[in-house]
C-alpha cells in the first residue's frame, strides 16, 4: 500500500535525532534544551512505529513502546520544568551558563 520505503523514515528519524542533539548542545536556554530532548524522544518514537509497521506488523510492541515514551516524556518534562522554575527562583535566570557553580 504505502510506497515510502523504511529507509526514508529511518533517515527522517535519524535526522530528527541529530537535530535534537544539536539543539541540546547549542541552546543556552534550558527550556529550548528540554525541547531538543523532546525531539530526540520523538525520533525514537518514529523509529519504533516504523519498525513495527514495516517489519513486525504482527505484534504491537513498538507502538506501545512509543505510547509509553510519550507518557514518560510528559512526566519528565513536568519535573524538569518544575526544577527549572526553582532554578529561576534561585538564579534569576534559566540560562544554562549561569548554573555552573559546581565544577572541577
Amino acid at each position: 500500500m504505502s510506497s515510502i520505503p523504511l529507509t526514508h523514515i529511518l533517515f527522517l528519524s535519524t535526522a530528527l535525532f541529530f537535530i535534537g542533539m544539536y539543539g541540546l548542545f547549542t541552546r543556552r536556554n534550558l527550556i529550548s534544551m528540554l525541547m531538543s530532548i523532546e525531539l530526540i524522544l520523538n525520533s525514537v518514537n518514529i523509529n519504533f512505529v516504523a519498525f513495527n509497521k514495516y517489519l513486525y506488523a504482527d505484534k504491537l510492541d513498538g507502538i506501545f513502546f512509543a505510547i509509553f515514551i510519550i507518557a514518560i516524556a510528559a512526566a519528565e518534562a513536568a519535573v524538569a520544568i518544575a526544577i527549572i522554575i526553582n532554578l529561576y527562583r534561585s538564579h534569576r535566570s534559566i540560562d544554562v551558563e549561569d548554573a555552573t557553580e559546581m565544577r572541577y
Partner: protein
Amino acid sequence: MIDFFILMKQELVIMIIIFALLIIKIISDRSNEWILNMVNFLLLINFAAGFFFGKEGMLFNDMFRTTPLTVLEKNILSLGILIISLQSYSWLKNHKHVLEFYILLLSTLLGMFFMISSGNLLMFYLGLELSTIPLAAAANFDLQKKKSSEAAMKLIISSAFSSGLLLFGISLIYGTTGTLTFTDITPHITNNPLQIFAFILLLAGFAFKISVVPFHLWTADVYEGAPVAVTSYLSVISKGAVLFVFVSVLYTVFKPLSHSWYNMLFLLSALTILIGNLFAIRQNNIKRFLAFSSIAQVGFILVGITGSSQLAETSVVYFVLIYIFSNLAAFGVVSLVSAVTGKENISDYKNFYKTNPALSWVLTIALFSLAGVPPTAGFFGKFFLLMSGAGKGNYILITIAALNMIISFYYYLRIVKAIFMDANEHPIEKLFIPTYPKMAMYICVGGIVFTGLLSYVYEFIQSLVPGV
C-alpha cells in the same frame, strides 16, 4: 492469582507504603517525630518482607520475573534505604516536607525493583525512568539552596538526554530483533554493526547511571549539590540497582556479544578507575570527593564484571552489599556533621578525632573499607572482584587496577590524616548522635566487620547466582 502477590510482594509492600504515606499526608498532619518513627518502622517491615514466601516465576508474559537473586538484590536495596532513612533523621526532623521526601524516594525504589525484575526492555525502561525522575525532584529538595537546584537541573537534563540515547539504542535493537523480551532477543543477536551500535547506546545508558567515565560527568556536581541523604541514595542504591540489572543483562541478553563488550569494559574500567582517582585526589568538598571515589569504585566493579562468570556476578552483588555498608557509614557521619554544622569540607574534619572519637572511628573504618584494607569487608569485596577479573587472564587490567589502588589509598588516607593528625585549634564541636543515626552506624560498622570475615554471606549469594 496468589502467585501474583507472592512474586510481586516487595513491589506491593512499597506501593502500600507509598499510598499509606499519601493518605497520611492528606488526612492528618502529625509531627515529624511521629512520621519518622512510623516510616522507619514501615521500611523495616519492607526489609523483612523480603525474607518470607520466596518463590520463583514470571508474570505478565515474561515482563516481570522473580528469582531468589532478584529477591536478594531488592532486599539489599531495602536495607540500604532503611539505613539512609535512619541516617537522615537529624536532617529531616526539622524539614517541612518529610512525607514528600519519602514518597519520592520510595517511588524511585519501586522503579528500581521493577527494573531489577524486568524481563522486557519496555519494563526495564519504565523502571529506569521511574527510578530517575523522582530522584531529580529529590535532588532539589533543599529548595532554597542554589546548589541543590543546579544539581537537580543537571541531573534531569543529562538523564533525559541519556535516556533518549538509551531509547534510540532500544529502538534499534527492536528493529533488528523484532522483540523486546530478553529471552527472545538473545537468539537474534548477531554481530552486525547496527546491533553493536545499539548495544553501545544501551551500554552508554547503563554507564550513565552507574557513572562510568566518560559518562560520569554529572555525578560529582549532583552529589555535591543534592542533600546528603539524596547523595548517599544516588551513590549506593540507584547505582547498585542499575549494576544488578547491568550484570544480568550483559550475562544473559548480550551473551553473544560478550567478546566485544569484554573489550569495551576493559577500556572503560581502566579509564574509570584512573579518571576517578585522578579527580578524587584534588577534591576538598567531602561529598564531591566521595562522588569521585565512588566512580573509582565502579571502575573496580567493572573489572570484576569483565570476568563474566558466576564468580564475577557473585562478587558484584557481594561488593554492592559491602559498598552499601561502607559508603553509607561514611555518608552517615558526613550527613550528621553537615546537618548539624553545615560543614562539608575535608579541611573542616581536621583534628576531628579530638572532639568526636566515635564518629572518627566510624568514618575511618568506612574509609578503610572503601580503600579495601583488611580486616574490613571492603578488602574481601575488592579481592574477589579483582580475582574474577583475573579469571579471564587479563593481567594488564589487573595490574592497572592494583596499582591504582595505591592512588585510592592516598586519598582515603588523606582524610584519615586530616581526622587524626592535622592540627586544628577549632575542630568540629562535639556532636550529639540521635538514636536512629546511631543504629544506622551500628548496622553499617557491623556489616563492614562481619560481611567479609564471615564467608557465609558470600557463599549464600553465590548459591543464588545462576551459573553462566
